[in-house]
């Protein structure tokens, strides 16, 4: 019966192709997520790499990323919007803030994981600190670095769905509208699309990380634990 509701909703082309339909909202969802993670990476990656390189402030990064796990995203999103006002920009800023700790700790952990003799060798060859970071530590850090980006992306895909509650578009808005109008087929269709988007994005990033990781260190290292939110 639920399946028939789902198929019934999906069989209406309007639900796919209208300006608030599945396809357009999937693109919006994707856009919000990629944008947030990109901005978060631009902010957090250099900081994380530098903290990993110097070793200073590492404890703060670990505490920050651990305590982020405890924060209720729905609470943050509603709080943020009441304080900063309804609209895309404040909500997106919230997503960026949520994505930062994962990227930061991934970059930090990546550089930290570089074996000490490798760093010593780089230093011994007369590399400047920036050269060490760019040519030696960054490539070696790649697997964990991308692990952080993947975690951030999953977190943001999930939170963007929740943020539809405060007016952000995307697949979450279809889902919540379905709940409001007791249209279970619609709700389920949106939920399936959100799940699919998350799984596909994660697979894509995993693929990308493998391509961008230098071949020499490409030995099946496990990605950092993902964080569904």
């Amino acid at each position: 019966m639920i399946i028939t509701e789902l198929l019934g909703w999906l069989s209406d082309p309007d639900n796919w192709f209208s300006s608030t339909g599945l396809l357009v909202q999937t693109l919006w969802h994707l856009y919000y997520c990629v944008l947030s993670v990109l901005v978060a990476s631009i902010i957090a990656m250099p900081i994380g790499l530098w903290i990993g390189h110097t070793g200073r402030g590492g404890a703060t990064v670990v505490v920050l990323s651990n305590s982020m796990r405890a924060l209720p995203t729905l609470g943050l999103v509603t709080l943020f919007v009441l304080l900063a006002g309804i609209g895309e920009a404040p909500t997106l800023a919230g997503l960026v803030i949520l994505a930062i700790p994962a990227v930061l700790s991934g970059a930090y952990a990546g550089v930290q994981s570089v074996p000490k003799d490798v760093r010593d060798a780089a230093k011994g060859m007369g590399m400047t600190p920036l050269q060490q970071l760019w040519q030696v530590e960054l490539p070696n850090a790649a697997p964990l670095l991308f692990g952080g980006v993947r975690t951030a992306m999953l977190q943001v895909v999930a939170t963007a769905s929740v943020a539809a509650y405060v007016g952000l578009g995307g697949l979450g808005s279809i889902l919540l509208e379905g709940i409001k109008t007791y249209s279970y087929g619609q709700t389920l269709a949106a939920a399936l699309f959100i799940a699919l988007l998350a799984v596909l994005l994660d697979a894509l990033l995993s693929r990308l990380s493998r391509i961008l990781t230098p071949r020499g260190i490409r030995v099946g290292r496990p990605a950092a634990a993902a964080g569904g939110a």
Partner: protein
Amino acid sequence: MIDELTHYFSSPSNREVVLESLGQHIYLALVPLVLGALLAVPAGRFAQRVPKVRGVLLGSANILYTIPSLALFVIIPALIGTGATASINVVIALTIYNAALLARPVMEGLDSVPEHIVTAATALGYRSRRRFFAVEVPLALPVLSTSLRVASVSNVSLVSVGALIGIGGLGRLFTDGFQRDYLTPILIGVVLTLLLAMAGDLLIVALRRLCTPWQRATSGGR
């Protein structure tokens, strides 16, 4: 701020809502943790012994853990036919996350038990089931408890998302506060969620210390 708080708590109905939500939140976070662990231990044990199962289990656990909570809360009733706003949906969804999260550490924890200890236990006459519960599981606890902490903290934060489908403990304070444009309940909800996460974390650390006395005796490890 203090004024706002005293004002909010001066209303008996507000106090009741907060207490009720808190109780529900604890229930919704705790039950899946216990169920998830109960599922992960036998599954992890089985997978640890059978390499083929290991890959399949780890792969599916990864995928399950990737699915956003709001989506899972909605997909579950479709799969098992529960009502769309039944709290069992949240319990099942979080149980799935916890089992998925704990499957790997159960395997790694059991892997980390030195082979000679297992052999010694066998030589002492332990049958496999008793050996598993009395020797292997306790020795795997340090590895396992780290992931239990992650699972408990993320449960506490995820439960509130349930408010969007009409269940969700402290999440109710967020939706109420948002609809009434009222900051105080939202802040109370965020703070209580954080305190709850911290309390659960400390509880697991304490339980772990209690259950692994040999660690303190030998290395003073955390």
